[in-house]
């Protein structure tokens, strides 16, 4: 934590420079158990592509609450939520969206076919669309994502023993994959709910040119 305190806090816009995952034609994996705070992070990462055009969320559970995306900087008129509880349609719906949108955030239903996921990755590359995959259970097939962000820990701030309120969180992530040059990085994301997330690169493993 001492390193975190010394590290410079950067705006979310700089996130691609720290971990270049949300880029056209790239697949980003958001892997972690429910409650690890990755849904809100994924929505926040849509804010950049949403400036170029409409972005979509494939909502398998029908639970998505758009204010979390709005608070993270996605304009309401740019966010389209596609509810798709049927597993048989999930791949086709996601593929249809990838064909025309700059970014798609898709919850991956449990037991999704590996070949289908790889086809979607290839389609995202071909269409220059960013694909953010959030598996609801388990991990993504190896090598699929250009960058995997794995939820390591989350610390909620503000709530006490019957007093206060949740005001923010510190989300510790492990970044792995080609997006970070093959070496793992640990990042800490600060989210106070009022503005876009801020990212604190915490581990010195990041090349000096990347840690802003």
């Amino acid at each position, binding site marked *: 934590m001492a390193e975190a305190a010394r590290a410079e806090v950067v705006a979310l816009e700089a996130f691609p420079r720290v971990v270049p995952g949300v880029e056209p034609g790239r697949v980003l994996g958001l892997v972690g158990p429910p*409650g690890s705070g990755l849904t809100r992070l994924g929505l926040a990462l849509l804010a950049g592509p949403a400036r170029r055009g409409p972005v979509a969320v494939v909502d398998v559970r029908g639970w998505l609450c758009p204010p979390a995306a709005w608070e993270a900087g996605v304009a309401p008129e740019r966010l389209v939520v596609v509810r798709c509880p049927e597993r048989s349609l999930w791949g086709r719906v996601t593929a249809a969206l990838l064909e025309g949108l700059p970014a798609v955030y898709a919850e991956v239903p449990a037991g999704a076919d590996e070949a289908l996921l790889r086809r979607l990755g290839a389609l995202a590359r071909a269409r220059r669309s960013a694909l953010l995959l959030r598996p609801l259970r388990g991990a993504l097939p190896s090598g699929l994502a250009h960058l995997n962000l794995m939820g390591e820990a989350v610390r909620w701030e503000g709530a006490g023993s019957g007093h206060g309120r949740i005001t923010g969180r510190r989300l510790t992530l492990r970044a792995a994959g080609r997006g970070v040059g093959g070496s793992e990085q640990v990042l800490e994301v600060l989210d106070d709910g009022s503005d876009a997330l801020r990212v604190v690169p915490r581990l010195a493993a990041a090349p000096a040119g990347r840690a802003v």
Partner: protein
Amino acid sequence: MVLAVNGLAAAAGVAAGMRRRQAEALCPAVVTLAADPAADAAAFEVVATAVEDLVPRVEVADPGLLFVPVSGAVGYYGGEVPLVARVAAAVDEAGGQGGRLGLADGPFAARLAAAAAGDGPVVLADTRAFLASLDVAVLGREEMAATLRWLGVTTLGALAALPREAVASRFGLPGLEAHRLAAGEDRGVRPRSLPEDLAVEERFDPPLRDLEQAAFAARSLAHRLIEGLGPWGGAPHRVVVEAGSPSGETRSRTWRSADPFGEAEVAERVRWQLRAWVESGGVPGGLAVLRLAPADRSDRGRQLSLGEDAASELEATRALARAQALVGPEAVLQARPQGGRRPGERVQWHRWGEPAAPPDRDPRAPWPGRLPGPSPALVPPAPRPLEVEWDGGSPERVRLGSRWEPVLAWAGPWRQTGRWWAGEGPADCYQVVTSAGALLFEVRDGSCYLAAVYD
């Protein structure tokens, strides 16, 4: 009661609103006819059609009252005066002698200009200046006009000079509408509805089993549909696609678009829809009937904003339309903020491609007792039962799946009084933090329900 008079009767001093005996006293030779709105509409149809031949998409507001959108026609006919002259001549030829014409920015001012017209038409150069001198009575709201006069506001100009918020606060929605009209901010012309028989249909014997054949037929049908709408100057924003099987089963889906459909767009949607049905086995035995019908024929279009790229916008629209074909229009949604206390209440959903209705609850209102930010990312469609162990008044453990998770920190309760008049009881909301995540739950009638997850 005299409802309408012709020119001769008006010259003799008869006016609308007089009693019949009064009219007969003023003009003993007057002929009175009983009101017959249906006959009026039939007689006026000739006039409406004559004007429609010159300018498409007219709005018949009442028998005898026609609004004509002129923004395009002015350029075509070489100016406002030549256009008005052509319309006046067409009205005369169609048997509408004595018709009055007014040209202004919006139907409200145009109607008043026509009412003020004498022998010749009135073309307003400055609509707002014209309106400013008129009495507030022209708004057609006696009670409001009386109150405005009592307040010293006698003209539309004086009304328009008042702050809009103040007028809205005093008179509500009618006041807001009156202020808009007084300020010259009128609605556009709403074109009259088109005939109902514009649907096109094709029957196939033997039924089509090949998607390419069906797509070819769809192109031809789309051509017929759009061609049929052409003379009416209409382009549909919604098209109903219906497919029938040999056994009589019918599948139907309505396609919507923010921009009016053209022939290619309709053909494309029908092809996507047929493919979706064929792949899901929705039309067993092949396609026996294909029918396309315009479900809406308004002239509302959408202007791209600066910075929007038309090509990528079109690609995005196509992508979302394909997703709509797969999961249905009810599953492709957009949301806008609205007021509310619970996270789910602060969202107003609407189907993508359709205009959003005004929010039910004002999002700018303070909403005391609302859950403070940051907002949870996940909210179940309906609160789910949740097991919570309490120690005194404090939550100790919550059951998530098969495991009991100790509560590390908690906040609340926030009391939601609920809509007691609708039989809804009060609820207490708690935020709890566990090692497996943070969540929001509510206690109602002694039971706990999961309300949201901070994921």
